[in-house]
């Protein structure tokens, strides 16, 4: 089917197409049915976000993006809701993957998804008064809220021998705040639910009214371990609107940086899963040591440990000279070889395999229904990788290998990381050896328009929806893959025993900060 066939199917009105993003208008009452039809036809619901357009046309907007993998494009359905009654039939009632997005829009915009199966608060905790909708344009970013006590009920199971374990938001280790509620019978988990959004930073609000250049530092700091990917997704959206062409050398360097970030974080995760998750301590000590080499390489090349500051709209801020490329190639070669020897040792340990296998199984159906993204989805047999479906930077020339596992357990996610690590090391070797010559930055003047920036970070698909008006950001939603994957806990947890939960958690390694913009 072509893109227009899909729009006809959905009952929408075809709008403009620009850089692979096709816009279509749709009536609010038809939105849920349209999403259900597209979803049934195999298009993954990739993003749902709201906008406050009351100043321009007196409406609120609800936008749903679907990935058109075969056409390497995106389809965005937009519905306009009247400002005095911003309500529409819930998409979640038909497509489960929309559920957090709609709760998010209800909290942040006061847009009601009628018939949402779980219309509880998401971002707002007990202390936020009713009727607070921070992303509406008439809400000042520095508003001081009164303290309220609105109920925030969590799932609760009753029965003989069933008890609740509240965990967090403050944990025994140095991690971000998150509250988890277990309902257990003995050690066996019956239900598991998370409560996040303890450290809301208000980045989305702060981005509004800024120029893309002013906004970039905020985007880079959304989630420290995904600086490159977030910056790239944002810059791609800016460049798509401006219509500027990024030079070849900058594109290749961007791919290189993405892969360096992937290698660093996969090493971290492998060490964390095997080392801290199962207590195979040798892996933790050595994995973190090897990862530290990469982090220090970033500190040497960019003056910070997170590969920050390199990617800017139009290309790169500074060139990676041949000397730097040689050093990157050398460090990666050594680190990869060393990591492989430890991984070989780790994977030959029966005790270790026993802990990872059959733990925290995410079924393919569950992953599909909840709209899982990235590595956890690939480990459950959903072979999607934005680098292949929507090639960006230099990935059309330097093709990654699709890594897919079927069993969906912690072991599958572990092995998927091992395989991606190998593939990224190969890509880095190729990129450093055959880096094209030429300029590194093109002129990129902000224009007005709408665009989606898509990047496959090491966690999964980042979608950065951006709308620029008069050269300034009107709305920016940088959607972290964790936002889609947090809900997977409810699917993965039940059936496991409580002591295996940290292992499941580490195998997903989701970002609190990236979700809690």
């Amino acid at each position, binding site marked *: 089917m072509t893109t227009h066939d899909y729009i006809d199917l959905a009952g929408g009105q075809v709008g403009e197409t620009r850089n692979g993003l096709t816009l279509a208008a749709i009536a609010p009452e038809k939105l849920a049915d349209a999403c259900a039809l597209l979803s049934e036809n195999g298009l993954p619901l990739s993003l749902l976000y709201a906008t406050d357009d009351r100043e321009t046309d007196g409406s609120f907007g609800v936008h749903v993006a679907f990935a058109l993998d075969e056409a390497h494009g995106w389809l965005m359905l937009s519905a306009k809701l009247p400002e005095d009654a911003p309500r529409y039939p819930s998409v979640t009632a038909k497509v489960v993957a929309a559920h957090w997005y709609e709760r998010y829009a209800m909290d942040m915009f006061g847009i009601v998804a009628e018939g949402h199966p779980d219309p509880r608060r998401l971002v707002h905790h007990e202390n936020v008064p009713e009727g607070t909708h921070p992303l509406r344009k008439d809400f000042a970013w520095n508003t001081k809220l009164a303290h309220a006590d609105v109920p925030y009920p969590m799932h609760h199971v009753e029965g003989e021998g069933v008890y609740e374990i509240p965990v967090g938001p403050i944990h025994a280790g140095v991690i971000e705040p998150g509250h988890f509620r277990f309902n257990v019978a003995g*050690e066996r988990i019956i239900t598991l639910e998370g409560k996040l959004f303890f450290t809301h930073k208000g980045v989305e609000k702060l981005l509004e009214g800024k120029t893309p250049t002013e906004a970039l530092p905020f985007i880079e700091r959304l989630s420290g371990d995904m600086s490159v990917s977030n910056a790239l997704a944002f810059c791609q959206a800016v460049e798509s609107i401006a219509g500027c062409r990024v030079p070849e050398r900058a594109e290749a360097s961007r791919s290189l940086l993405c892969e360096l970030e992937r290698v660093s974080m996969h090493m971290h995760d492998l060490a964390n899963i095997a080392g801290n998750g199962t207590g195979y301590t040798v892996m933790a000590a050595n994995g973190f040591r090897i990862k530290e080499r990469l982090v220090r390489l970033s500190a040497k090349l960019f003056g910070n440990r997170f590969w920050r500051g390199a990617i800017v709209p139009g290309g790169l801020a500074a060139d990676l000279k041949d000397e730097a490329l040689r050093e990157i190639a050398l460090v990666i070669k050594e680190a990869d070889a060393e990591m492989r020897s430890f991984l070989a040792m780790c994977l030959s340990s029966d005790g*270790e395999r026993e802990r990872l296998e059959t733990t925290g199984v995410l079924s393919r159906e569950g992953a599909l229904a909840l709209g899982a993204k990235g590595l956890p989805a690939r480990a459950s047999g959903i072979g999607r990788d934005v680098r292949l479906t929507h090639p960006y930077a230099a990935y059309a020339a330097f093709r990654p290998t699709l890594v897919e596992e079927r069993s969906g357990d912690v072991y599958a996610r572990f092995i998927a990381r091992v395989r991606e690590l190998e593939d990224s090391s190969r890509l880095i070797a190729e990129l450093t050896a055959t880096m094209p010559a030429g300029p590194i930055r093109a002129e990129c003047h902000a224009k007005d328009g709408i665009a989606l920036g898509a990047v496959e970070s090491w966690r999964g698909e980042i979608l950065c929806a951006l709308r620029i008006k008069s050269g300034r950001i009107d709305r920016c939603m940088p959607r972290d893959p964790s936002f889609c994957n947090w809900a997977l806990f409810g699917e993965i947890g039940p059936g496991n025993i409580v002591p295996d939960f940290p292992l499941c958690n580490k195998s997903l390694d989701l970002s609190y900060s990236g979700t809690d913009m």
Partner: protein
Amino acid sequence: MTPILLTVIQGAVILALAPFATGLVRWCKARLQGRHGASPLLPYVTYATLLRKEMVISPTVSWVFRLAPYAVLASTALVALLLPLTSVDGALSASGDFIVVAGLLALGAVFLVLGGLDPGSAFGGMGASREMTLVALVEPSIIAVFAAFAVTSGSGTVAKMLSVTGMGLLRHPGLLLSLIAFVFVALSENARYPVDNPATHLELTMVHEAMVLEYSGPYLAMLEYASSLKLTLFAILFANIIIPMPLMTVDSGVSAMLMIIASTVFKLCAAMGLLALLESSMAKMRFYRMQEYMTIAFLTALAGLILALA
């Protein structure tokens, strides 16, 4: 030397060495992982610091919470005096019947569990339920292990059992099985791998650490010290069973005493080195595999007992 003096010396040596044992195993593990590791003497500083700290105690606790650290430390210290660790002729060694030893260990475990349950926090209860599961499974193995030694040596006191250890083990090969079971039991009793992770920061996987989570300051120091003490006495007892070196008797002189204290330190170092090697080379076991581990321990202990009876 008088028996009283022997017991006092044993108590002093073991009590003094206990924090070193904990520090040493941590240091060895760090070395095996390729880290520098903190000084093995760090626990002395840690416990001293804890003793000076303020205690934060939940207002919901009863007297049980306050009694538990004393009961746990006292029962462990008493076991340290009963067992033949540096001397076989101590004043209390005649009372060191293995049933008494097993009972004292269980008493400590029960109070630890009660202390974990008392504040009513989720983790304490979780740790307590896990600990009781383990204690119930490990208790028969302890009895069977010591019974095998008792049958072979013809005596119920642990001090007399040492007559069949060392080279004596070769004459009673069935006891090797009991010795293996003893290692299983000792790892479980001391909350070590593969049963429990003594270094975990993951509140959901803890057993021992979950029970002491609500304790702070001097009470925490007492509980931590008690677990160091337990680790030390199991390690030295294990070493005394396999290493045929004479222990202090009433006839020993000062030079023999110094020799034996030095050899005790050596035994402890060797045992902690082995423990660190074991813990660095394996992952922690899944909690619901624990009954398999305990079954192996019990069947091995039982086989040792049957061979001893045969």
